[in-house]
């Protein structure tokens, strides 16, 4: 079984993406053998009113029973925009979304801003995790209208003490460096921190070293489909010398427990 933490539907403004509908994404999942995927709507990042994007996501997933069984909606909330509390409540309580996904670089706020911290603590109260993608596309190829910032280990380190009960999933970034930076802050912390390995290499046993350093209990599978080839992540799992038990935790068990699936 595989559960993917990091997938999208919606329009990416800076290059053509295919399979960016629920149907296309589920087809990719079928081809790759992914059972369930956490999904957000890229449109919500670029609409001034994120909630329109969240509602689109819910409508599209609800349009087909199979989408509802396979796709796990995550809400993109902008805590710097009026009505974010209502957006949050609407997404979690009414639309049944299972997690939050935040893009401070795109929405131009600091994770440590008062409304952001309030949102992060609300997530903990609702017992839902917060997904923090460090980036969407590689920095070196960014379109001239795209953000020139990635989420950094510093950004996360500064906010962790302000929301001690919040569970975070950090993806699509330099996981080894961020995990190393956050190590002392996460020990004994009530909320858990999970990392994906989408940007960790295969050579020099870097993937295994990362899993050993953070523990298999804290690693999840993230592909960035349909924007990146999922086979890159499979190559790391396939050629790694991790035990089957460790691989199972990474491929689905950790997310299954976290999301109470």
């Amino acid at each position, binding site marked *: 079984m595989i559960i993917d933490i990091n997938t999208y539907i919606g329009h990416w403004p800076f*290059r053509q993406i295919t399979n960016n509908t629920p149907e296309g994404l589920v087809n990719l999942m079928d081809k790759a053998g992914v059972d369930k995927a956490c999904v957000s709507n890229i449109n919500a990042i670029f609409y001034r009113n994120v909630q329109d994007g969240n509602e689109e996501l819910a409508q599209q997933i609800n349009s087909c029973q199979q989408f509802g069984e396979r796709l796990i909606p995550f809400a993109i909330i902008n805590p710097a925009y009026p009505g974010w509390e209502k957006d949050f409540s609407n997404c979690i309580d009414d639309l049944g979304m299972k997690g939050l996904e935040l893009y401070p670089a795109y929405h131009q706020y600091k994770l440590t801003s008062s409304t952001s911290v309030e949102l992060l603590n609300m997530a903990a109260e609702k017992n839902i995790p917060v997904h923090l993608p460090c980036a969407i*596309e590689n920095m070196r*190829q960014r379109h001239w209208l795209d953000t020139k910032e990635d989420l950094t280990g510093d950004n996360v380190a500064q906010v962790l003490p302000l929301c001690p009960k919040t569970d975070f999933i950090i993806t699509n970034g330099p996981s080894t460096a961020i995990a190393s930076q956050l190590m002392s802050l996460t020990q004994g912390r009530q909320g858990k921190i999970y990392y994906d390995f989408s940007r960790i*290499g*295969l*050579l*020099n046993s870097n993937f295994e070293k990362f899993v050993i350093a953070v523990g298999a209990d804290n690693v999840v599978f993230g592909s960035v489909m349909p924007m990146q*080839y999922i*086979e890159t992540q499979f*190559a790391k799992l396939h050629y790694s010398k991790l035990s089957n038990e460790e691989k199972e935790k990474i491929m689905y068990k950790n997310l299954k427990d976290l999301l109470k699936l």
Partner: protein
Amino acid sequence: MKNNKVVNWHEHVWFKPGTKELNEEGCDQLVQAASEVYMDYLVCSLPISGGMPRPEDIRLCNDTVAKAMKRHPKVIKGMAFINPGYTRETLDEIDRCINELGMVGVKLYNHYFASDPIVRPIIEKCIDLDIPMLYHAGKLTVGPESQPFLSNGEHFAKVAESYPEAVILHGHIGGGGDWHWSLKAMSDYPNIFTDISGSVHDAGIIETTYKMMGADRMLFATDGSFAAGIGKILGANIPDNDKIKILNNPRFAKYLERGMQ
């Protein structure tokens, strides 16, 4: 596909940290890792990325590659790293590396744009010897000042206009940067090839390169990113027979064979 040879046209061996000696352990690990993922040949160079390396520095790099070739003669083939800034010494070094050390081509970095007139004698030498030029390349949209003389497809197109008989290999189309830019700039020139290496594994990068360049002008490579290289070729939606061609491009077979004599 396991029954077909796999040639990795862009890899590196390095100095042991703090020394000017071959990192034998790293070299052995690279070869071992290549064996585990069914790569048959690694075409390696040892470039100096910063500053303006002197002829004696470059000889040391190439001697070190020659040691790696001797250490793993069935797997490692050499690319001669050169700096076009020292014309006479560079021409001599190309002769030495090709004719004495048995290397298969030259590797240029970012010391000069490929279209700089200072590179012309090098291009003409490579034409005379009938060897390919692998050029470190990319169109950085963020932080281009970090590599002010980094060549991209536009520079190679200018070279191809002047030298249609040269064999120009754009290094790592997935090495970071706007890969559409380079593909659009160089796709009309049949003597420009590209390797597919680099950590960027955007879905569609292989399909787009295939559409614009054709499998005949694509070469499998990893440049340190084994997982991304494997993921891209496995994940790409192109015919298997063309994947096989990319994995061991027959257009470049004669260069590899020369390195085996």
